[in-house]
């Protein structure tokens, strides 16, 4: 479950059937990295994760909202298809709604770690990304 130490990165929001997170960052890059962290944190136990695997991810979209959904969808797909979980997201390029990142984490071992929720998809429902000076905030709801 999301611990108090992660509160500055994101908070979980209440919805009857699904799970949503509100994400914070001091830059767009940080916001996107925190969103990825938040998604894995509500999905699976990522405490004290070793960094034995890393991957490069490139995604692109037409606006920030779509970029956020595309980015999280890609990461969720990697979890599902490759059975890997991540807690470190270094955004190496962020321009014109294109994002490149090096993500680090470990292979998921169900004997050691609990899965909290299966995320079927990242939805567009009540989705937003907004900037107020150097403060960025976003909201995304997962269908679980």
């Amino acid at each position, binding site marked *: 479950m999301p611990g108090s130490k992660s509160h500055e990165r994101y908070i979980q929001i*209440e919805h*009857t059937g699904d799970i949503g997170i509100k994400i914070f960052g001091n830059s767009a890059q940080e916001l996107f990295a925190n969103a990825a962290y938040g998604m894995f944190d509500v999905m699976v136990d990522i405490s004290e994760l070793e960094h034995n695997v890393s991957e490069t991810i490139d995604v692109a979209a037409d606006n920030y909202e779509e970029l956020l959904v595309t980015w999280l969808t890609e990461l969720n*797909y990697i979890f599902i298809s490759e059975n890997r979980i991540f807690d470190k997201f270094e955004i190496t390029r962020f321009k014109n709604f294109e994002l490149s990142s090096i993500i680090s984490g470990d292979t998921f071992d169900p004997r050691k770690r*609990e*899965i909290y929720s299966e995320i*079927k998809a990242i939805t567009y429902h009540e989705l937003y990304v907004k900037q107020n000076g150097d403060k960025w905030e976003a909201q995304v709801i997962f269908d679980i």
Partner: protein
Amino acid sequence: MSSLKFLQKTDYLWEIPQEGKMRVPGRIYASKKMLNSIRADNAPDQVCNVAHLPGIVNYSLAMPDIHWGYGFSIGGVAAFDLDEGIISPGGVGYDINCGVRLLKTSLNRKDVSGHIKKIIDLLFQSIPTGVGSKGALRITHNELKRVMLDGAKWATDKGFGDASNLEFIEENGQMPGADPATVSERAMDRGTPQLGTLGSGNHFVELQYVDKIYDHDAATTLGLTEDQVTLTIHTGSRGFGYQICDDSIKKMLRASEKYDIYLPDKQLCCAPIRSPEGKEYLAAMACAINYAFANRQVISHWACESLESALGFSKGTIKFQLVYEVAHNIAKEETHLVDKKPVKLLVHRKGATRAFGPGSHDVPEKYRKIGQPVLIPGDMGRYSYVLSGTEGAMNETFGSTCHGAGRLLSRHKAIDAAKGRSIFRELEDIGIYVRSTGKKTLAEEMPEAYKDVSDVVDAVTGAGISNKIARLKPLGVIKG
């Protein structure tokens, strides 16, 4: 709290008047007591949002188990004119053709008493459950294409169960119009390892007995008697369906712009039914529908084998018969009366069940005089219901009714409420043995997280859109 205006039409029906850009009024089926909790959610606003979509006919409808969804509410029903209307993947949901099947057995409650733990343990062993569970079936992409086209028949052809059961599945377990060429590689990659898996969340296999019969004639037609042992399976199209929905939503966002469709919420994105984008989604959706039909057929075969083996019987000793199988996340072309004339419509049901009345040719001949059986699972601590469709449903709701209890607590609140308690033990104390992969799933799914399904059933029967036949009580459950 929703600030919308609700006009009481009957004891169980409330209308939200057409306002602003709404094309039709909204209608919610619920008792007065239920309406208060429904209003606390944003779901009625979602009923209004759906009323904005082009080509919607008569009303944007919601059943009493309505709760907040994304885009369309869960419990929503909306019918669209084939020429003017739209198809929206959000009106079907991510778990395309999530559904319920009920099997009756030749066993009596006494025959399984003392063996529940063994049966449930064996069910849990033989049916893969949990997040991202992978099946014992390892099929290729080519085989998956057969599944997409043939549905439940693929499974019976492979020896999973009896083909004589297929007529008791909606669409006979095989949705026409499927085109595997519309399905992405990614969906196929997610679909191949998950065929024959239950998944997580509210999906389950439950061992039950018939505890009460309300309509003896209808129960006789269905072959249900008091104390008879039954099995209910609730699952859908797994990652295959989720990916098809996800892929389609991206395309539909573009299509909504292209066709200049006003969307009060992006998740309602859609395309005209007859547009290339609309046709493509319908063909891909049919593939996922068939996948789910096959999935339930395979799981049901394993469930039957487990039951026999747990009781030490040889194969074929217990007589299993499929009572019926319903889909509750689906869009289908159907003919309904609009202004007393038969019109072909595309009916979206998201967390709602088809409930065709007596005499309908889409109901198996054996059941035609009583109407289509409707299966309404409740939470795992209380009971489930067998209902049937009515003439009232045909006249008012495009032959639709509720699909379940509906959540009362968010998953987060349910986990909080379960802290320091053993849900497993609490259920065991009332005679229900549960196995689940995740402790968290059990907390999220505990009985008090759900509305009492009998309130939902009373509302749909009170409104005349369903008829109550029987109630089933759980003996044991496997969850994801």
